């Protein structure tokens, strides 16, 4: 497969550019940024435009984005490589909540299926729309992220794309060979050896015997299972089984690749290997990627659909924005006090000097960060040690403030502790952040309280970058005259 890839890449030097475009797109999606250069990027920015107009699909505003096709003629190089490989129009699918009714509808569908059921499908009793009015187009080299909470309809959509189930309305047009990484190691029989199961799995994935014969050594090497390949698969660890399954699946050379959550299993090394493989096939492929792993999504996707109860709540190129929306659903959880021994009680937490928009404090990049905290003392003799942390929207800690050094004794009369935490010239990059707070009796020992989601804030800036810090810098060019 790598050979093939190289081959293709040589044929079409444009791939490399495509790739650059893809990566720069996130950075650049806020088009105010004039810097990112030259002609290469232009076609993409042009393409983006028609879509940004109706990016936010609400349930009321279901203008199919695909009705706004990107003018291929505007594309300076209309090669076959950015042809539309997946086209989804007004796709809907309904499911039944009740098993017995579902089976009975199944019998009815079988009968009406023979007659070629052309009638408009309405919801029958106990049915609901699992997928409703989904529209998108995907070209070669693009990767669509499908995100959403459990039961949002992502897997159903994938099954329709994969041709496993038929839609109830709308249409899917797919060009080229479709590969699906939905289940790894399909067709394995546990009692047979790894080598035999490579053939079983390969056959299910559509390889011929000759193809497998030619690739079997590569597969074993990729799975790193040389030593155990003749052992029955039932004695494999689950990680080994997944590795073998992926190694076989990685031999596919699809035009369209559908990836479900499968890659979540396996150790870090394996996951990295998988993504390396995906990266190599990405330029030649249109990928639909379903995941709950937002960093992964933001890394490989350049288009995104956020699904909620079957409908596209957000759709477009602004992957970061969709991920923000995805996280907002979780952030409404208010049980953010993870640990509390009762000695302190939070009374107030406020970001000073911030503007409130939609109940979220906003700071400008470079402003001073000033956090005001007030606690009621229930039972404490000494001022504890406060550790303020900042998390990004993916809940990764990005910064911690130095804790209070002085730990003076408290008077019996003191009922409150109040203080400001100040940091000048705050240089977090544009985006949403969370403040977390850990309180210890003494430096990092004897926890008193731990709050994960103390407050949220947003940093405003006109430059959108993915790293959490956008640091001020001075470039001093040294003349060598």
């Amino acid at each position, binding site marked *: 497969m790598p050979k093939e890839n190289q081959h293709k890449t040589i044929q079409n030097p444009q791939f490399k550019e495509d790739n650059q475009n893809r990566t720069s797109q996130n950075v650049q999606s806020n088009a105010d940024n004039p810097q990112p250069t030259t002609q290469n990027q232009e076609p993409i920015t042009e393409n983006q435009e028609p879509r940004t107009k109706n990016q936010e699909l609400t349930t009321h505003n279901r203008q199919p984005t695909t009705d706004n096709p990107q003018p291929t003629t505007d594309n300076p190089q209309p090669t076959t490589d950015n042809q539309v490989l997946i086209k989804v129009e007004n796709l809907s699918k309904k*499911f039944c909540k009740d098993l017995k009714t579902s089976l009975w509808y199944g019998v009815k569908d079988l009968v009406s299926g023979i007659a*070629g059921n052309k009638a408009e499908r309405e919801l029958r009793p106990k049915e609901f729309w699992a997928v409703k009015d989904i529209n998108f187009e995907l070209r070669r080299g693009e990767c669509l992220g499908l995100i959403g909470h459990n039961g949002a309809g992502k897997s159903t959509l994938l*099954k329709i794309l994969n041709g496993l189930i038929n839609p109830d309305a709308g249409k899917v047009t797919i060009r080229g060979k479709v590969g*699906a990484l939905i289940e790894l190691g399909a067709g394995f029989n546990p009692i047979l050896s790894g080598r035999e199961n490579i053939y079983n799995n390969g056959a*299910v994935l559509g390889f011929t015997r000759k193809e497998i014969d030619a690739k079997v050594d590569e597969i074993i090497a990729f799975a790193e299972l040389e030593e155990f390949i003749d052992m029955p698969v039932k004695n494999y660890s689950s990680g080994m089984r997944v590795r073998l399954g992926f190694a076989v699946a990685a031999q596919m050379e699809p035009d369209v690749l559908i990836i479900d959550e499968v890659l979540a299993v396996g150790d870090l090394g394996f996951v990295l290997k998988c993504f390396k493989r995906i990266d190599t096939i990405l330029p030649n492929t249109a990928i639909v990627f379903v995941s709950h792993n937002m960093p992964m999504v933001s890394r490989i996707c350049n288009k995104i659909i956020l699904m909620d109860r079957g409908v596209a709540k957000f759709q477009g190129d602004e992957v970061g924005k969709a991920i923000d929306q995805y996280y907002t659903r979780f952030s409404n959880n208010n049980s953010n006090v993870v640990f509390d021994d009762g000695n302190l009680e939070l009374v107030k937490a406020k970001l000073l000097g911030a503007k409130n928009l939609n109940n979220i404090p906003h700071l400008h990049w470079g402003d001073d960060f000033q956090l005001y905290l007030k606690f009621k003392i229930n039972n404490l003799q000494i001022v504890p040690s406060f550790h303020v942390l900042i998390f990004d929207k993916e809940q990764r800690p990005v910064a911690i403030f130095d804790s209070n050094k002085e730990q003076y004794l408290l008077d019996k009369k003191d009922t409150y502790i109040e203080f400001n935490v100040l940091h000048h010239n705050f240089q977090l990059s544009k985006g949403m952040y969370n403040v977390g707070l850990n309180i210890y009796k003494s430096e990092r020992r004897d926890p008193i309280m731990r709050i994960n989601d103390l407050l949220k804030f947003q940093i405003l800036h006109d430059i959108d970058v993915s790293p959490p810090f956008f640091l001020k810098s001075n470039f001093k060019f040294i003349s060598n005259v």
Partner: protein
Amino acid sequence: MSLETKIYQKENNLKLGKLVKESLGDMYRSRFLARQLATRDIKAQYRQSYLGIIWAFLTPLATAAVWIFLNKSGTIQITDTGIPYPVYAFSGTLLWSIITESLNAPTASTKGAGGIISKINFPKEALIVSGIYKMLFNSSVKIILLLAFIFLYGVGFHWSQLLFPFVMLGAVLFGTTLGLFITPLAMLYSDVSKIISMGLSFVMYATPVVYAIPESGIMKTVMELNPFTPFILTARDTLTGLAPEYLVYMLVLLATCIPLCFLGLVFYRISIPVLVERMG
């Protein structure tokens, strides 16, 4: 390079001819998969045993031994069948098992592949073909035994024996056709499989499997009308060199089975998405 285009939408434009063509095309393309699935299951069946493949011979031999014992000891008295009873009974049960196994094979293979059907898109026709392969493998062992019996009991060689494989394939076609229509319903409701297995055990007594058609009475009419009868009797007649009385009935059945089998394939093909939807 032009790319193959697939369109998925709610089923319309059903053209029988096109569907049959697609179905047969997929069957041809998936021949390796079908063989691979069959070898997988056969291998797995005997892998975890010392005697391995010998079991395939032992089981029918044991059954045959029981009949021979019962017959020799005079425990059961059976009207003269014209040929040695062991050959009669063994050929009867062999054909019967071929028909019932091919009837059940599509359902069994489809159920067995439930896990991958709902995850991976592959030609489902391969499941049917692999079911037939497995059934033929199991039968071939029995056929070897049957041939041994024929010579042991002095029936000897007849030219008509060369026709036996064709009658057997006819029986496979008959069973598979019925199976294709049953499978979608059996996948939805487990009742269907139960009814089928119960029904078949009754039908066996109305078929000349281990005893001949009686001279008179209602049973004679029932057995003569029974569509399973002509396959079993014709197969037996080819083996023993007797004139096949039910040949015409069997050929009529086969002639109706061929178009029905295509129809069954189409029905199976279009029912798979409906089934996957319910299987999750």
